[in-house]
């Protein structure tokens, strides 16, 4: 009887030992499996990280391609209009400075710079005889000339990446008081970027020489723009323009010459 109990206990012990060994084996396997998971996760993480670096590079390249394309288009417009020189580039640079001074995020949006550079793209459809006419334009001629913002908007309409740039092109001749063209928008109906542009455009026009008049100094140009505050220009934009020092515009003008 006692012998039988001892034998039974021994068998039971042996069975428990085997069970323990099995469990240990299973646990070891689970740990090894977990390590494989950790290793694979690590490799996936590294691949994802490399991919996001590639993606950022691609996005940067794409942005540079956009900019190059916009510049090419802008240069094509400029090439026709000999005396304005690098007007579009200067206006874009002035406009960005004024945009920065407004304190918003406008200046960091590349579409805004695209819009500034392309504002006159619609002039490709204006006949030479009108574009270069030294005398004042007739009513019909002016109608044709004043169509260029809409023409520009239509030329660019299928280019998705331009986004808000197209609104700048369309509305760059609007006036704060509603007397501009092509849509006669007033006040805040005019896209903000176009309102900023209007001041930059006038600044460049006044401080560049023309066949019929010499370039104006900064003091005089500022007086004229201040006089247009609330009529031609958004008063907030003029206020922002006023805090940008002369030296900033003068430096940009030298750099872009």
């Amino acid at each position, binding site marked *: 009887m006692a012998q039988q109990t001892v034998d039974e206990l021994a068998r039971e012990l042996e069975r428990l030992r085997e069970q323990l060994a099995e469990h240990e084996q299973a646990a070891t396997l689970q*740990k090894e499996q*977990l*390590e494989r998971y*950790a*290793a694979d*996760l*690590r490799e996936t*993480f*590294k691949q994802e*990280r490399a991919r996001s670096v590639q993606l950022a590079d691609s996005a940067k390249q794409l942005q540079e391609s956009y900019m190059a394309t916009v510049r090419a288009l802008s240069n094509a417009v400029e090439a026709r209009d000999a005396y304005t020189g690098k007007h579009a580039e200067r206006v874009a640079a002035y406009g960005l400075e004024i945009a920065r001074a407004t304190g918003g995020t406008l200046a960091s949006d590349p579409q805004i710079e695209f819009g500034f550079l392309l504002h006159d793209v619609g002039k490709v459809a204006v006949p030479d005889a009108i574009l270069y006419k030294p005398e004042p334009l007739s009513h019909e001629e002016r109608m044709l000339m004043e169509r260029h913002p809409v023409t520009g908007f239509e030329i660019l309409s299928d280019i998705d990446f331009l986004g808000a740039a197209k609104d700048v092109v369309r509305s760059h001749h609007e006036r704060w008081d509603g007397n501009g063209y092509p849509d006669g928008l007033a006040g805040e109906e005019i896209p903000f970027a176009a309102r900023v542009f209007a001041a930059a455009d006038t600044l460049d026009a006044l401080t560049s020489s023309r066949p019929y008049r010499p370039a104006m100094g900064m003091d005089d140009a500022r007086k004229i723009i201040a006089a247009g505050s609330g009529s031609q220009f958004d008063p907030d934009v003029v206020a922002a323009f006023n805090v940008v020092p002369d030296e900033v515009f003068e430096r940009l003008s030298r750099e872009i010459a």
Partner: protein
Amino acid sequence: MSSIVLIVDDDPFIRKLISTTLEDVSGFQLIEAEDGDVALDLAAEQPPSLVFLDIDMPRMNGIETCRRLRELPGAREATIVMLTAAGVEQESEARAAGSDLFLTKPFSPLALLRLVDGLQ
């Protein structure tokens, strides 16, 4: 000179798991310690940038180890991440001892990876 990540846990499997997760991810050198004393010796020789520190360890616990690590000139600036299976009641104690972050076991391996990656 490559930066050092020190992994301190009395459970060899947890150390292995952490080092497997982080191995060669960011050019860090991974070193392991099985208790607080070894951790302090290693940290004195090779000042770590990042320490993963288990709270529940025999002899010197993680909170005491953390306090002493902070007394070492080389580990004063290290990011110390406490690992624990316990609830949040130890968190304020761990913070008082100079730890920066608190991860509860089972910790997220992705959180470990992001931590190490972010230290670059």
